Structures are given as C-alpha cells and as structure tokens.
C-alpha cells in the first residue's frame, strides 16, 4: 500500500461523487453498458431502478473496479470518483475501494466473529500505520455498530460468529464494517432483497440515517422503496440510462414513456 499517495478525499472536486463519461462495458462479446453518462451527487441518496438484467449491478461493480476480477470484461470511457479517474495509471486500487464501500445483495459477513468483521478494514488500514490500543478498537467497534443500530442486539455476543446472525443483522453488520474505513460513497446492490418486510424497513431506516454522512447509490427493485428513500432516481433500461432526476419528479411526471411504463409496472 502506498500511503504517501494523495488521498482522493482531501482533494478539491466537483459536486459529483461518481461521474461516468461514455462508459461502455463488454462481457466478452456481450455489451452490457452503452454510453453511460451518470453523475451521482455528493451527500445524497440516489436510487437506481430498472428491469432485471439492465446492467445495474454491472454499473455498480464498475465503480469500484470489482468487476475486473472477470478477465473477459472490457471497458471504454471514464469513471471519476471524487474527481479522480479510477482507470488512471497511477490509481491505487486499494485507495479507490477504501473510498467506495459496497453492500451486496446477499449479506456476506466473513466467517469470523462479529468483532473481527467490524474491525477487519480498520485493522487492515489503521493498525498497520500505527499502534492501535484495544480501547480504541472497542470504541470503533461500538460506534460503528451503534451507527447501524446493531449495538444493543449484539453487544453481548461480539465474539460469536457473524454467520450466526439473522439476515437483517448480517446486512447491517456488512454496512457497519465499511464505516471504520471511512468511505465517502456507499454502493448498495439491492441490500434488502434477501430480507423480510420488517428487516427491509429496518435497513431502509438505517440507510436514511446514514444520509448526509455518505453519498449513497442504492439499487432496488422496490418502487416504493426508491420513492420513499431517495432524493434522486436513475432509471436504466438495456444497459442505458434512460432518465435521471429528482425522485418525486421522476415518479410523478416522467419524461420518457419507458420510464412511465416501468414505474407503472408494465415491465418485469
């Protein structure tokens, strides 16, 4: 890790946390994204809706370059995160990913204790630079878990395996473990789709609480959720962005007929 590199978070940049320009992406011969121009504003919640297979997950995974794991993926165009081109030659992947936390569709806690899960990123980054006391770790642990409203439920079983938690608790834990790394952006890919209604409501409430502290981009299939819990909304169709605007406007008076069809439930 190169700690001498300029931290993208402290550099002057525009209003956008994520900005893509002419982004195309191919899985082998199959083009999944077409000329995507998207600006995700800082500090607000942006939701992303669209039928299955339209490229929402693909777009999210491009923003932190996790998609590169697949050798056959090719991209053109640019993705700026916090004003820096993440495809640039001098970009340190680790720094990019620290700035962009991601929450997955299925909660994926690591098969270690709750405490170790939350402190995983912290230990990876902070504890390597300086001496971290146990008290400090406890503090980070508690504040992260408090932020995701999980502290009271798990405070007595911090050393139990995280995989023993309910799905809702696991998903909250997955959000909690991003916080000690101090990301600017949180990408959430259908974070509630594996949860029951009560869990969905709890996680939604949590996301709403994190608003302002983080820039949040959340993919959802739940129209009501997008409407309730986001300030801007992006509608995607077949790898393109069809419409992007303030949520209430997009839902009340969509500009494109495809958008209207989709929010009225005429697509799958």
């Amino acid at each position, binding site marked *: 890790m190169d700690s001498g590199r300029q931290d993208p978070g402290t550099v002057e940049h525009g209003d956008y946390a994520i900005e893509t320009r002419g982004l195309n992406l191919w899985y082998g011969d199959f083009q999944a994204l077409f000329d995507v121009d998207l600006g995700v504003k800082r500090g607000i919640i942006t939701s992303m809706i669209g039928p299955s297979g339209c490229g929402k997950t693909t777009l999210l995974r491009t923003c932190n370059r996790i998609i590169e794991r697949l050798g056959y993926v090719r991209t053109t165009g640019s993705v700026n995160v916090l004003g820096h081109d993440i495809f640039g030659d001098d970009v340190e992947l680790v720094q990019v990913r620290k700035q962009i936390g*991601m929450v997955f569709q299925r909660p994926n806690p*690591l098969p270690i204790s709750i405490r170790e899960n939350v402190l995983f990123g912290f230990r990876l980054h902070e504890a390597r630079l300086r001496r971290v006391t146990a008290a400090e770790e406890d503090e980070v642990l508690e504040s992260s878990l408090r932020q995701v409203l999980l502290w009271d439920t798990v405070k007595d079983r911090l050393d139990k395996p995280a995989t023993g938690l309910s799905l809702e608790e696991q998903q909250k834990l997955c959000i909690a473990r991003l916080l000690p790394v101090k990301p600017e952006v949180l990408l959430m890919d259908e974070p509630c789709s594996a949860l029951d209604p009560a869990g969905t409501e709890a996680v939604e409430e949590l996301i709403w609480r994190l608003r302002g502290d983080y820039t949040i981009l959340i993919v959802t299939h739940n129209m009501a959720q997008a409407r309730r819990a986001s300030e801007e909304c992006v509608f995607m169709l077949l790898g393109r962005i069809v419409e992007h605007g303030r949520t209430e406007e997009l839902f009340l008076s969509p500009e494109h007929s495809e958008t209207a069809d989709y929010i009225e439930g005429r697509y799958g």
Partner: protein
Amino acid sequence: MFDATALNRRSYRAQGIAKAVFCLMTVALVVPVLLIIGTLIYKGGPAISWEFLFTPPRNGMTEGGVFPALVGTIWLVVVALLASVPVGVAAALYLSEYAPDNLLTRTINLAIINLAGVPSIVHALFGVGAFVHFFRFGTSILAASLTLAVMTLPVVIVATREALQAVPQAFREACWNMGATRWQTIRKVVLPNSISGILTGVILEVSRTSGETAPIMFTGATAFIVFLPESVFDQTMAMSYHLYYIATQQTGVPEEITFGVALVLIGIVLLMNAISIGFRVYLRGLKKW
C-alpha cells in the same frame, strides 16, 4: 383406499433390487480391503515387535528388523513434502487467485491434470536424468525426494485449487471492498477457509509418496545399508523398496518378515492419514458457514 396397487408393488420391487445391487457393490469394495489388511495382520503380525521396528536387518535380511528403512522412508517423505507443498500451494494460489482466466491458464491447468496421470516409472527416469545426473545430486535422498515431489506436485496443485475454489467468491469480494489487497485477502480469508481441503491434498501425497517404489529405486534408495542417513546427500533404505527387494530379489526371507514389512508400511500410511484427518476434522470444526 390406501392399499398398494400393482404398480406400487412393481416400483417397490425395482427399488428393492437397486438397493441390493448397490449394497453388494459396497461389500465388493470393502471385502478385499479387509482381506488384505486381515492377511497382513495374520501373517505379519507375529513379526512386529519393538525390536523389529528398531533394529536393522541381519543375516542377509532373513532376520532382524526394518529400522533403517523406516527412518529412510520418513526422510524421503519429509524432504519430498518440504519441496512439493510450498511449490504446489504457491502454484495453485497463483492459478486460482491471480492468473487471468485465459487460454494459457486453461492450458496450464489441463497440463497439470495430465501430469497427474503420468506413470511413476516415467517420473523415475526423469528423476535419474534431471536430479541424479544433470544437477549432480547423485543417487541420494535429495534426488529421490525431488523425484517424488515432482510426481506428487499435480495432486497437491489440483487439491489445493479445488479447496481454494470452494471458498465463496462473496468472501473475497467482501475483503476487496474494504480495501484489502489480493494477498491480504488470501492470507486472512481464503487460506484459513481452505486449509482443510489443502490438507487433503497433502494426505494423498503422503500416502502416495511413502508407498511408491519406482521413483526412488534408481534415484536414491538402496537395498541394504545399515547406517542411517545423515544428510540429504546420503543414500537410504526405504520401506517400499525394502519390501520389493525381500519379496522378489532376495531368497530365504521368512514369510513372516515380508508380511511384517508390508504391515509396517501400511501402518505408516494409515497413521499419517489418521493424523492429517484428525487435524482436518479439528479445522473443519472451526469453520462456520
């Protein structure tokens, strides 16, 4: 109303037959194993004693024990493990965690699988050419162990790769997401969760290494030497070769001794397997997903 129809009865009969056949096949598998072990214990058991284990053969191998061969086999296996486990695990890590999924990688994978099918006598000849002559190790433990290592490397690589691939991709993504490098991800998440599978590969390797005769015959094993090896450049006796020798090359060896040697050899293999399996069960118990 709930009486069996003719059709019901027919399917029961078919099921009964299938069950009987499968059961028979299982028995057919287990019986020879039991027979072999039973015979060994029956015929070789009386030969086994501390003296048998801890003294060298005497009198043209018609008396005495197996000590030098026992020690030699341990040397061969340990040195072979030291060579093949690090190399094999590293290669598997590279292939499954770092290498891009392209034609070259797939070709290498295919080659490795094919390498596992090469007969051991071919490895033996390779060992003679490469280690004994080219690298000038002479006939020595080093040359023999390296030959064994080359022979078992594919097993280690394949087993390790499978163990690595059994670790859910979601774990890796979770780590990368918190800004872990590939190596940190491997060390903290992938390896701890695949170690039991990797051990399986090592188990297989140990069993195979300690039992093979051909690869060590020309590269480092010798029929008779009373001195214990002092370094990897010495020649050594080995259990498998010793058994081959007294069973086929030497006349006048009592049957009891021959079966005793075979029993000890199988004992070593089973013991090593048992230790590794115990270790594996223990680690599996720690795994929680």
